[in-house]
């Protein structure tokens, strides 16, 4: 029995559960999509990924159909490309953007990348536009549906992946709006501000409000790191522009989180640039903590430690390390305790 199919004339092995789209991309075919996010069930909405399958009267949405044995698939021909181009023209006309804020700040968005590939301009078909901008004072998610293409990735990620059930398409047809039911603002809705809607958005409709206007894409570098809050250890990318931390994007390759984040990891990192940060050592003088140099502070500290050790021995010391600090600091603190002060009185704050 055959366990292969043919895509664009090439023989392709069948893999359990793999869609035509995934298989086609695996063997190098460039199939455009706008509504596809591999983490949620395909919705087959954008209809850009349609391909021809022998024996089927109409082209099929490759994202939503498994590649099966003996299937003969054509991912590209003049007719398919012409219709894809028309759909792109239609989509671009639904909510045309003069200046895509995503392209400017995050780098070319999926929509405008495709538009460039297909040489399509946004004002090709004039007509009514569908998007509206909700009055939403929430401090995290900037929602501008005048840049929305209603691909429903945000609502699917919210409902299927996060299961937060905060936003949903309301109404029907061209009048469909993305809403938080009964709430104009996401504040007060079911939204947990995980920010995953922003991360899946293929246009500038959903943006990180905290990062908005902070930098242009060319100036941003992303540094991989790990979220410093709970024990899950989600992967994050610290976005840095001109030496300043400006915000977080998920690390899609992180094994524990696979691109997911919660409100703390997504929007809670800016404590690091708080004006409350300590910037110099402080020493208590006349009962008051006052700024000091490192040399002053550490001289004082070491003198005291030497004195106490001489007087009372290692048992007079207790060191409590931090379950929030990196392991290297923890290791050296216990080395200070065991190897230098000579005490095993080293503990950490994991009990609280």
């Amino acid at each position, binding site marked *: 029995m055959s366990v292969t199919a043919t895509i664009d004339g090439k023989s392709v092995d069948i893999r359990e559960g793999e869609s035509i789209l995934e298989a086609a991309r695996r063997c190098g075919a460039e199939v455009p999509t706008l509504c596809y996010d591999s983490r949620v069930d395909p919705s*087959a909405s954008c*209809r850009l990924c349609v391909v021809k399958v022998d024996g089927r009267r109409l082209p099929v949405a490759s994202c939503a159909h498994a590649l099966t044995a003996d299937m003969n698939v054509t991912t590209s021909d003049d007719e398919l490309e012409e219709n894809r181009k028309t759909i792109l023209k*239609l*989509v671009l006309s639904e909510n045309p953007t003069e200046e895509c804020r995503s392209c400017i700040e995050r780098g070319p968005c999926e929509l405008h990348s495709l538009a460039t590939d297909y040489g399509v301009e946004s004002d090709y078909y004039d*007509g009514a536009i569908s998007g509206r901008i909700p009055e939403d004072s929430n401090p995290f998610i900037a929602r501008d549906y005048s840049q929305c293409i209603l691909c429903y990735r945000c609502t699917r990620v919210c409902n299927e992946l996060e299961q937060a059930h905060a936003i949903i398409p309301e*109404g*029907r*047809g061209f009048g469909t709006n993305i809403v938080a039911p009964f709430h104009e603002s996401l504040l007060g809705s079911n939204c947990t501000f995980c920010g995953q809607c922003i991360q899946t958005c293929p246009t500038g409709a959903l943006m990180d409000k905290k990062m908005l206007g902070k930098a242009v894409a060319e100036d941003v570098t992303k540094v991989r790191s790990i979220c410093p809050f709970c024990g899950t250890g989600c992967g994050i990318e610290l976005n840095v522009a001109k030496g300043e931390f400006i915000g977080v994007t998920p690390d899609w390759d992180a094994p524990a989180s696979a691109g997911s984040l919660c409100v703390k990891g997504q929007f809670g990192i800016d404590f690091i640039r708080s004006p409350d940060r300590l910037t110099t050592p402080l020493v208590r003088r006349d009962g008051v903590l006052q700024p000091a140099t490192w040399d002053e502070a550490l001289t004082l500290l070491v003198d005291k430690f030497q004195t106490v050790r001489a007087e009372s021995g290692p048992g007079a010391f207790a060191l409590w390390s931090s379950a929030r600090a990196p392991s290297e600091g923890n290791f050296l603190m216990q080395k200070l305790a065991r190897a230098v002060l000579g005490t095993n009185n080293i503990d950490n704050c994991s009990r609280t």
Partner: protein
Amino acid sequence: MADRTGSHAPFLPMLHDAMEHTETMSEETLNALSNALRIPASYIHQAASFYHYSNLGKDHVLREGTCGGPTCCLPGVGVRRGTPGEGIACPGLCDQAPAALAGGVFRGTAADPFLPPPPPASVDGVEEVLFHDIRIPGLRSLDVYRANGGYEQLRRVVEQDDAEEVIVNLRASGLLGRGGAGFPLAAKWQAVRETPGDRKYVVCNADEGEPGTFKDRPLLHLNPHLLIESMAIAGHVVGATAGVIYLRYEYPEAYDVLNEAIAEAEAAGVLGDFDLQVARGLGSYVCGEETSLLNSLEGLVPWPRERPPFPTQKGLWGLPTVINNVETFCSVPAILERGADWYRHLGRDESAGTKLYSVSGRVARPGPYELPLGATARELIEVAGGGPLPGRAIKGYTIGGISGGLLAAEHLDMPLDYAAPRQHGFALGSGGVVVFDDACCVVDLVRTCMLFYEAESCGKCFPCRVGTVRLRERLDALTGRAEPSANLIDEFNEIGAAMSANSACGLGQAAPLVLHGLVRFFGEELEAHRQGVCPAGVCHFL
């Protein structure tokens, strides 16, 4: 909130219950529904806000409006439609046009909206199958139905317990699904029968939402037991004990009729262990698409599903499901009674059986008619429908309601069967025919059709959601509402092509067909409109 735990598909009944109590649905009601149904409130909100006649995400239940359908908007019938959103979706009263929703009641020109008239007398020489008994007074009641041979076929099927034999018969009869796609009934039932599973469903698509189509309505109103018997037979054949009739919102009287008939049949014990329920829609054309219908029953937004899997494999609640429309089901008992050969030969030429056609618009005797499958448009219009209005000349007609295509008078001798319309890239569809004459503007008619598609597009897929609007806007321009663009025909063609090929369901695929007909067969009238002239004098130019 009423206990609906025994319901096969509790969402729609519970939504109706909830709507009875509030003018605008509150968050509390929504949450109560969510808890009772164990469906996230967000999904219920999305689903409920979708329907024309729900009050979720809207201020109130829609209770007033005139029909915006193609028949009711023809000159001399109703009013010329203005802007999108105006006018209600066709409520299937095209033979009583103009129709309207007034005080929450759908009514046409008939005196009593709750007592629809039986179909007009049969055409001489036509042997009726579906309408054979329909004019018998009191047929709604179990006694009268039984006195005319009702439930005999169900009894025989149960007694003989030979499902294969039934399927063999149905295959021999050549009966194809009358919902539009024309899939062989026997093959469908066979597929469900052979799909393993303890629980299966029989679902009737009584969501007759196609404009210009009103042929299931008399069956539902006047001969409910025929449908009930037919579905029970289907249940027996495929191994399903649960059935659901998905009834369109616009047929409220049928809801009572069906429920009473089911109760009567159950009380008399004729249904055995087949448990049949009626779920009322809330106003949505796309729910006539079978996978949207299933989503609607499940309380999900009624966007179409991708196929495969087909409902025969994964239908209602993911279980094997027979889904047929009213007309298809109702053909079964007669086939079983009188034989496959008899039925097959009722049709013309290669076609098998009879077809219910609806004819409306500019004809003398609009109505639902049963004719041999394959009767020509001329027969339907001139013989059954009484021909054009006095002094008028027929200019053209739509088929499949409006979703099968648009033809000109020169095509009147085209057989209304499955094969002939395909030569034009068209389809028989529901068998509805809307007739227009020299007093009508074909461009304006096409625009009315596109307004309908725009209003009914579910919004899931890009080509349909945006394409219907862009096409209608270009038709706006042609009919004098804006300046037409220079490359109008190119735009029609390319948008239409993308919609037909790439749309997710039949709505978007079929929506451009009327436009194709316009471009191909009414080029002169189209060109006149581009020059700012409406030959029929219907359109007013800026």
